[in-house]
């Protein structure tokens, strides 16, 4: 037997592990409790989403798209639907744009609430998960009454949205949006100043702005490092240029800043929801929500990049079409794929407990990574 190296130990975290947010395997090389090297191994949730698109119509692929990132179903759906609409050069009705914005911001709040609960569960606090899920359940009930499903909504279609929002559901969303800031304040009072939480998240996993640019990190992770870049402000899509909201930016780039950025993003999303509801509740005349295209007539040609600012960062759907009824190639550029690459760089030389604090704060979701 060769000489046994007694100082360095290589352990395997995952793929079945309560804190890896899905099935991710991390090969961690430890010296005592200090991390020397992390190698993520992905692919446990690879479903062949991109290959599936080549054997299906555009309309047959539409329900599958929600599952690219199941926590942000509306964002993935929008990226795909917008790509086809750009290729076919059609403009959707204004009410459909408002409904799409409203549902996407609700989805952003839901995704951040789940992130919040699970992040604190990773750190050992068992109560905030339940508090965050109370609000999430309210939104899920509203969306279930609207679209018929709690998670994979299948609500957008080429030319608009499938169903109109009835007034009583709009009123329920309004009640939720009026009550939500007090819930966010409750989370902040419970968590933000907790000395155990701050000592575990401050100064861990510091991500510099230059590193974030090199690794193509977008979304809240980038905004917590000091760069005020948000697709909704830089090149507005839908009706974001008509809305009044801010982009939360923090300077340091550690896990605590990422937490504060996401909490503030939830508040801004709430503001956007209230503004959309204003328009939807007051304007009674404009009722067209769907251009009612014939799905079999969708045979676009060309190549398109359609982007959306999803809850985790910049998501792009790149469609390459050759005029037939099936797409030639669909490529999904998902933000968690690049955040997962980042782990070795920012979690080196931390202790093992810090790995979970850093990994949880990056908000990585495995279906996005593996597609």
């Amino acid at each position: 037997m060769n000489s046994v190296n007694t100082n360095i130990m290589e352990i395997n975290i995952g793929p079945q592990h309560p804190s890896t947010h899905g099935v991710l395997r991390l090969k961690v090389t430890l010296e005592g409790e200090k991390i020397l090297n992390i190698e993520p191994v992905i692919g446990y949730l690879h479903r062949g989403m991109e290959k599936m698109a080549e054997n299906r119509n555009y309309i047959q692929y539409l329900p599958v798209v929600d599952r690219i990132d199941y926590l942000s179903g509306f964002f993935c759906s929008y990226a795909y639907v917008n790509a086809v609409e750009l290729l076919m050069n059609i403009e959707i009705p204004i009410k459909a744009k408002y409904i799409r914005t409203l549902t996407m911001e609700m989805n952003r709040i839901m995704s951040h609430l789940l992130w919040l609960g699970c992040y604190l569960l990773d750190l050992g606090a068992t109560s905030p998960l339940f508090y965050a899920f109370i609000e999430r359940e309210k939104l899920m009930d509203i969306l279930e009454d609207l679209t018929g499903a709690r998670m994979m909504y299948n609500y957008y279609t080429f030319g608009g949205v499938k169903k109109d929002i009835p007034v009583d559901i709009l009123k329920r969303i309004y009640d939720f949006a009026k009550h939500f800031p007090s819930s966010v304040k409750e989370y902040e009072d419970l968590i933000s100043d907790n000395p155990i939480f701050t000592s575990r998240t401050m100064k861990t996993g510091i991500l510099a702005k230059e590193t974030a640019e090199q690794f193509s990190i977008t979304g809240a992770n980038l905004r917590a490092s000091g760069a005020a870049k948000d697709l909704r402000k830089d090149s507005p899509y839908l009706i974001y240029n008509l809305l009044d909201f801010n982009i939360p930016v923090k300077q340091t780039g550690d896990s605590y800043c990422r937490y504060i950025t996401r909490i503030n993003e939830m508040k801004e999303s709430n503001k956007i929801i209230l503004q959309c509801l204003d328009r939807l509740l007051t304007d009674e005349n404009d009722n067209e929500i769907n251009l009612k295209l014939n799905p079999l007539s969708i045979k676009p040609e060309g190549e398109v990049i359609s982007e959306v600012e999803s809850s985790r960062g910049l998501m792009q759907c790149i469609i390459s079409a050759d005029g037939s009824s099936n797409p030639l190639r669909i490529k999904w550029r998902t933000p968690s794929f690049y955040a997962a690459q980042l782990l070795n760089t920012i979690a080196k030389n931390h202790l093992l407990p810090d790995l979970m604090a850093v990994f949880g704060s990056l908000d990585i979701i495995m279906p996005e990574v593996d597609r």
Partner: protein
Amino acid sequence: MFEDLKEKFDIIKEDIMVPDIKRFYVSAKNITGVLNFLKLSPSYFFNRLDCIYAKDIKTEFEITYILHSDNYQNKAAICTKLEYDNARTESVSGIYKNANWDEREIYDLFGITFINHPDLKRILLPDSFKGHPLRKNYKMEDERLRWNYE
């Protein structure tokens, strides 16, 4: 706007991607030079590589690099065509760090080899997988996956 790019490098073709993104076809040996130029030159500053993806048009592969510039808020696409058998090209992971996993994924799903890549191995599929699924002529020949056959 891309005049000096066209002067310096040999652009085979130029067209437009929807919505308003210029796409340049260059030859495979120029890729590293073009990307370096676009990243560093002050009139472009394409500081972020959004993604790299490959396409299988029946006769050849086409790899596209989508670049984004934060300063000027515009994008550009650089494409190369590679032949079907023995498709090899230079890796750009020295220029943009996030190209590392993108190129591994293209190797995994298409079989294109990247020279000078730090760690080229399969990423999404198991290491023992045979074949490259996203090719158009891929037939599922792995015995272990036979449940899907009619």
